[in-house]
């Protein structure tokens, strides 16, 4: 049997609701147990050294894993950051192992081979950085730029991200390295975030015909009810959610644009129609 190559992963939860972790637990193929225990692709195994939601250890044994990674050989692990990072007043609004989260993330980021910003909070700030941003929360990218850290960063946004987006990105890194992940100008893998919801929406024909739903639960395009699918880049209509069971527009609800940097402040109110000008400025891919 060929030798298995281990890829150590440190997964830090900063200012998060843990929804990204829970969404990854929903991965259907591979299942989460396959990810934890088996080789994601033959010969390659993710070794999840720190993940607070599932790991056995607590307290000191857990924190020692973080310290060992930050002080060990550089470029030997993947850092996953879930959540935005509180920075106000020296980061006192969020601590982990009795140290501000920001002071955990910085050395781990400097020493990592690659960083994945998992979810919209880590990618762009998200909900907890929304106005008035009480904890001074920043995205991973903003923190890296401020500290001059040049470790490669891939953003996998979504509130939460689809488990396939995460697993697919990790698998691509395992197979071809970081450079194999083609990203847009926002650092998002084009494979998953390359097209607008609107381009693949099964209710698109209603939009083209001008048949708009007047109330939630009506048939018709949800544009007048606030759907942000026209400006949101994700493959939800094709991939669908929860093992293909359903998805947002499939259940009659408008898309909230949760993968975009404008979420939530500039993309809300969620149930108000977008101004038409917003349709005219699609974001370019790099």
């Amino acid at each position, binding site marked *: 049997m060929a030798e298995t190559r281990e890829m150590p992963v440190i997964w830090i939860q900063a200012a*998060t*609701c843990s929804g990204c972790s829970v969404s990854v637990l929903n991965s259907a193929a591979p299942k989460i*147990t396959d990810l934890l225990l088996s080789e994601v692709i033959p010969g390659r195994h993710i*070794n999840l050294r720190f993940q607070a939601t599932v*790991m056995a250890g607590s307290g000191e044994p857990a924190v020692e894993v973080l310290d060992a990674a930050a002080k060990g050989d550089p470029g030997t692990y993947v850092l996953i950051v879930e959540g935005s990072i509180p920075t106000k007043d020296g980061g006192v609004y969020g601590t982990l192992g009795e140290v501000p989260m920001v002071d955990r993330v910085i050395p781990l980021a400097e020493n990592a081979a690659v960083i994945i910003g998992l979810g919209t909070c880590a990618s762009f700030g998200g909900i907890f950085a*929304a106005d008035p941003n*009480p904890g001074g929360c920043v995205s991973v990218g903003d923190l890296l730029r401020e500290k001059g850290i040049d470790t490669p960063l891939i953003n996998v946004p979504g509130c939460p991200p689809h488990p396939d987006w995460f697993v697919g990105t990790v698998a691509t890194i395992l197979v071809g390295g970081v450079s194999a992940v083609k990203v847009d100008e926002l650092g998002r893998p084009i494979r998953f975030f390359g097209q607008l919801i609107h381009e693949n929406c099964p209710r698109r024909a209603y939009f083209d015909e001008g048949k708009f739903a007047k109330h939630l639960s009506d048939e018709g395009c949800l544009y007048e009810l606030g759907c942000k699918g026209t400006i949101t880049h994700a493959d939800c209509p094709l991939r669908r959610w929860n093992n293909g069971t*359903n998805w947002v527009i499939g*259940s009659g609800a408008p898309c909230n644009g949760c993968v975009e940097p404008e979420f*939530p402040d500039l993309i809300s109110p969620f149930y108000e129609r977008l101004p038409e000008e917003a349709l005219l400025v699609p974001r370019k891919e790099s």
Partner: protein
Amino acid sequence: MRTIVIDPVTRIEGHLKIEATVDDGVVVEARSTGTLFRGIELILQGRDPRDAPRITQRICGVCPTAHATASTFALDEAFGIADRIPANGRILRNLILGCNFIQSHVLHFYHLAALDYVDVTAVAGYEGTDPGLLAAKAFLGRGELGPFVPRYEGDYRFPTDVAQRLASHYVQAFDVRRKAHELLAVFGGKMPHNVGIVPGGVTQVPEVDTIAGFLWRLNEIRHFIDHVYVPDVLEVARAYGDYAEVGGGCGSFISYGGFPLENGRFLGSGTIAMDLAPEEIGVGKITESVQHAWLASERDPLHPSEGVTVPDPSKEGAYSWIKAPRYDGDVYEGGPLARMLLGYARGIEPIVALVDRVLGALDAGPAALNSALGRHAARAVECKVVADAMADWVLDLVPGGEVYAPYEIPDEGEGAGLTAAPRGALGHWVRLKDGAIDHYQCVVPTTWNASPKDEQGKPGPIEQAIAGTPIADEENPFEIVRIVRSFDPCLACAVHLITPRGRTLGRYVVS
């Protein structure tokens, strides 16, 4: 005398630190600290009220549905449409929330709590054909043991064959909780953070195919609850019977009730102590103290409606971001145990029969329920009771029938949304001005359970549950993490911010 510090307490939702002062092998004092502050309620101010169910779900990715539920209840009332929700809408909301209960309870027992009792390294000697266990065995054989090691070592009591069987259920339960989310998505669109529950009802009309699909997905999960989850809890209860004697908390319990039916609520509301004499609840008796929180206040304690919250991270004598909610000036615990005790005391079947089955396995009387094991058992009983009821509710849906009542947003309005959440009593309060959110507030389950000391110096429920516990091995303080996890703490929910302007809560009485 020495202090054991556990930071982070892992396998919970959110960020928690526990400090326990141990003297002569017994915990004499414990402190529970919420270590993350985010301020969702402040973020809500001035926004379109319809956005509140979507934004408050982001308080917690494990139990977002409970927040969507509480928020829509509050908005239904503020919009004046609480009595206009179509029956289909009410039922679908219950089904969506019920899926979240199932997912949360299964996840908690197997993936958050079980590693404290089951030595998964027992699969190293596995010789059978279960693919999950064979994968785990190969994993251990490669010598890279994260995330299962490092851990506390010592008190794992099951013989190898039982540990292997429980480890296979740990693997299987990952599928079951995933399928509970798939079940939720049938009518809720996606999970975490469903999009189906909205003011006025829900967004998706049920049809015969989705109703039947829902029922059979549910039945598969019910089979697991009946034949794996409940028996496994009893198995742990038999092996760790001493945990029916430790971890008892304040001994007073609170529930807002949940799952509205045509008349009343499926899970009852009230308060109860270990004398098993239920009392009706008056929400006006709730206060919150910030005496030991990193929050400034000129007066303390305050009715939550009057809460003044100014972060003060260097405050003398403070040790948590969590406020201390109290009921009628006293400490109360929420959660499945509170709700099952109320059902048991009121003679509601099948709760009585199931609780008696647990007590039979423990060979103990009802007093044993106020314990670490009692909380796990109550959670399993509740999971079964809710899942079984859902199989009836889904058949009450009218295929193609209306699910949503259109409305206009009033300029002014206020509402309270109170519900049972998987971890306890959840309340959202909203006030509107000029059609926008003027004030929004959540008082959530873990704020009750993980609260610090109050203005009278009374410790919170988790702190009380740890105090007095003998610690066998201070290097491996299993007792503390087992007790803490029995509460299923959700720190992301607990740490929040209340805005300065308030309203009177006294009018709201949960029925």
